[in-house]
């Protein structure tokens, strides 16, 4: 079931280096969103830009009836969003899409997020912990100030996530992929390999992590992003090439098993 909620903005603040968190009062979506799903948002005051914008659900709070989304200021729309004040209303269709589908008996999971890709992967920590899995998270960002999800990951994990920054201002210097390879190798060497890898971030990162996971024989899922119009599966704008033909990122995804994706 999809809802189209007229959702008052409760909070809209910069969390670090052009990355913002917005909290929406959207009780139906908050009550039903699954990890990895997204909302398709119509932003007020930019009617000349006729399309909605998709944002992964960073956190859903069913009791409060709220959801958080994370956005990075990249173009007209996201810049305009930074000027919205609490009390203004957006319209959000959601929860949309196929979320993360870790294997039923998942015991040990590796989550990898690059930049704002940390948002849709964050709720998966709680889901995996609840089913008793051991979870390792790796976060990559351009710089320390852009590691905005680190604290929330730490709270959900009960320990610090592994971090890297491109400029070396926090954690490992450089891209996060060496951390991923080391984690896979160490787990394999310990005799307790990962049985699930999930990755969301820039497409080159996802492609590389998918190939590392596949090389280690670990089932991997990735969350893909495409230019999107309707966001409900009708218009066929956002298709992804898969081994099973073209699939819609909005409703057949955004999460796909990495082996199905034709990169």
């Amino acid at each position, binding site marked *: *079931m*999809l*809802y*189209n909620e007229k959702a008052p903005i409760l909070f809209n603040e910069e969390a670090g280096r052009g990355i913002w968190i917005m909290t929406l009062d959207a009780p139906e979506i908050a009550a039903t969103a699954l990890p990895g799903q997204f909302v398709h948002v*119509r932003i007020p005051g930019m*009617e*000349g*830009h*006729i*399309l*909605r914008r998709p944002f992964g659900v960073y956190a859903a709070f069913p009791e409060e009836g709220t959801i958080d989304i994370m956005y990075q200021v990249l173009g007209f729309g996201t810049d305009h969003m930074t000027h919205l004040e609490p009390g203004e209303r957006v*319209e959000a*269709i959601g929860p949309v899409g196929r979320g993360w589908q870790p294997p039923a008996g998942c015991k040990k999971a590796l989550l990898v997020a690059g930049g704002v890709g940390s948002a849709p992967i964050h709720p998966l920590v709680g889901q995996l912990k609840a089913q008793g899995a051991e979870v390792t998270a790796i976060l990559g960002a351009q710089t320390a100030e852009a590691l905005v999800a680190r604290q929330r990951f730490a709270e959900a994990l009960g320990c610090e996530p592994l971090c890297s920054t491109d400029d070396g201002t926090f954690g490992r210097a450089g891209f996060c992929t060496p951390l991923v390879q080391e984690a896979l190798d160490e787990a394999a060497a310990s005799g307790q390999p990962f049985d699930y890898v999930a990755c969301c971030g820039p497409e080159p990162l996802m492609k590389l992590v998918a190939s590392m996971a596949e090389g280690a024989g670990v089932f991997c899922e990735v969350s893909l992003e*495409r*230019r*999107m*119009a*309707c*966001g*409900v*599966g*009708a*218009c*066929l*704008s*956002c*298709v*992804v090439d898969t081994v099973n*033909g*073209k699939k819609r990122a909005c*409703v057949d995804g955004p999460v796909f098993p990495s082996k199905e994706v034709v990169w």
Partner: protein
Amino acid sequence: MARKPRATSVNLAVNLGGLAMKNPVTVGSGTFGAGMEYSDFVDVASLGAVTTKGVSLNGWEGNATPRIAETASGMLNSIGLQNPGVAHLKEVELPWLADLGATAMVNVSGHSFDEYVAVIEALEEAPVAAYEVNISCPNVDAGGMTMGCHVPSVEKVVGMCRAATKRPLIVKLTPNVTDITEIARAAEAAGADGLSLINTLLGMAVDARTRRPKLARVVGGYSGPAVKPVALRMVWQVANAVSIPVLGMGGIASGTDAIEFMLAGATAVAVGTANFANPTATVDVIDGIIDYCEQYGVKDVNELIGALEC
């Protein structure tokens, strides 16, 4: 909850070349699937008709991505008529629409004259109220717009489709021609029961930063509020040039937009790109038509058709 239009004493029923519509609002083909994707938002059976996504005989893969680009008050698309083929429509979507009591108009596409006929023949036993013959898609290499730009090919494809069915045959026209009235008259002469227009305008967008086109196929179809003046002008021209009814579309997002098209000569209207921003746009447009009629004392929506004073 799925929205329905509000109750009214205004007569909203119109007849589009033999297609009985409970109100004058359908959807632009390709913007609404066959309605399933929108059924959480609107009661698709409450629409005048559901015009389904263009269907070919054996299904097409469509074009490479990116397939869309947002432009000022509009968008470009280059989907390329991706569809799973007529058998899927017949087995899945049409029975679903029939069970709901919805009125289905099937948009028929083909790469060749014979393919249009084969699609119609495959659907003659299916619950279809009318066909919309798509000779206007700008995003495929064969068929589509190439067929709709010249009088001889328009006469041929419409004549062949006409011979294949007794059902209402609506022919969808491209605006990418020198004189749309010439094409409209050719379709009418070949047996069309109605004309729908406009399909998208051929357009293009460039990313200066990357020096690349924003669409993988370079060019695509332009739609949305920006094209409304062009669409209105063409609906008005065509309605004055033929005696068969016109289904008007191009940038319609509100009841007022719909009324403007009806005044210009449209018997019915289609809501297309507006569905993307607003999933209840169809019912909002119907409600807006009711509001207008009640406010201006219009008892029958048919009074508005071609009532433009000029």
